[in-house]
């Protein structure tokens, strides 16, 4: 298997709290890995460590050179004053790409694509954040509870779209939802 991000005996503490203790794992291309665990177990920290937003206290994280990440953060982290389309386009290297419009249409946001995201509902904002994560050219896709706030129909549709973008990527997917796993054909599980 083509390991893109390899954790080797990684530990991470925040203050007094040990969040990751000697964690080792290789996240490989073409593999979906669900990250499970109770609140505060370090699921989000694991994603942040994987893409370099956090540094480990001990242990090493090896990343393949030139690795490109994409992240659907737990909070949407959208540019409030920009339109849905502009937010998705931010992540595209090609400014004239038609991918943002196509993705927004598939997420049922055609009518809202020119609307500033501050005016969108929670569910719409979530879908814009997901579309942005999928629009980016990436090798590693980090999904932190990506379907929170979506109704069942929107969830099923979103999983279908995400699934199309899985090939060629290592996917780290934090979830509490059993449905999300049921809809993905093959995956690994890391329990923290």
């Amino acid at each position, binding site marked *: 298997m083509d390991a893109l991000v390899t954790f080797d005996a990684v530990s991470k503490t925040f203050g007094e709290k040990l969040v990751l203790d000697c964690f080792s794992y290789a996240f490989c291309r073409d593999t979906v890995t669900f990250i499970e665990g109770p609140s505060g177990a370090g699921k989000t920290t694991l994603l942040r460590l994987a893409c370099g*937003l956090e540094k480990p206290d001990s242990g090493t994280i090896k990343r393949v050179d030139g690795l*490109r*990440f994409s*992240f659907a*953060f737990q909070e949407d*982290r959208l*540019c409030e*004053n*920009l339109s849905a389309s502009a937010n998705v386009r931010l992540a595209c290297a090609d400014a004239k790409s038609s991918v943002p419009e196509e993705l927004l249409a598939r997420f049922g946001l055609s009518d809202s694509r020119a609307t*500033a995201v501050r005016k969108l509902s929670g569910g719409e904002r979530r879908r814009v954040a997901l579309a942005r994560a999928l629009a980016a050219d990436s090798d590693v896709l980090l999904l932190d509870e990506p379907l929170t706030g979506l109704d069942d129909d929107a969830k099923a549709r979103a999983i279908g779209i995400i699934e199309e973008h899985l090939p060629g990527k290592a996917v780290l997917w934090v979830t509490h939802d059993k449905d999300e796993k049921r809809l993905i054909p093959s995956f690994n599980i890391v329990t923290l």
Partner: protein
Amino acid sequence: MSGRFDNILTFKRLAERLWPILVWVAVWALAAALLGQPVLLPSPGETVVRLSQLVVTGEFWASIACSLGHIALGFLLACLLGIGLASLSYMSAPVRRLLAPVVGAIKAAPVASFIILVLVWVPSRDLSLVISFLMGFPIMYTNILQALLATDAGMLEMALVFRLSTAKRIRSIYLSQVLPSFEAACSLALGFCWKAGIAAEVIGLPDHTIGDHLHDAKIYLDTPSLFAWTLAVIVLSIIIEKAVRALIARAVAYVEAHA
């Protein structure tokens, strides 16, 4: 029907903004009538008559242009340097620490000290430019720097993960963050620049300026002229502030549409 309703709403809004002004003008008129001495307090009518006599003279417009040009240039320099140095300070803590005492000193020092000091260095015709710059710069610098320092760390992480170019970061994150503070700083700095710039002209007495005419009005006890020039300054200040706000609103709309 909706057009008529809109007209009523517009009239109501106008009336809500006008009545306080009318009340104070009435108080002014009453006080002037009770005093009965235009040298101490000219009436609103006398002020408007004097202003109407002034506006038909070339000297009035030349003075307005000269004062406005110098003060606007000082304000513009304050904006440019304020934004530039605030950006540098945001990127570099040593620069921020280096500039802190200077900005603090400019903020705290009395404007009269600057006027006298600057008069030693520059010709009196450029005094209002330097003084309006000195008044506007710390406001602009502090507001922009605070806005930049308050940039959402989560958004900066997002920019890092998605490898956004510097241009994209500026347009999508920093501009949205800074523009509201810039608008507030402009509004505040414009008022200070006008007041301090004209005060500098009153002390430096450069020819063909508003300050020069205010000084003449004081020397000749021509209080109606003093009020007329002051009224002209207030009207100009309102017009300029509205124009700057409109410009910023257009800039915001442009950024939102083209980011």
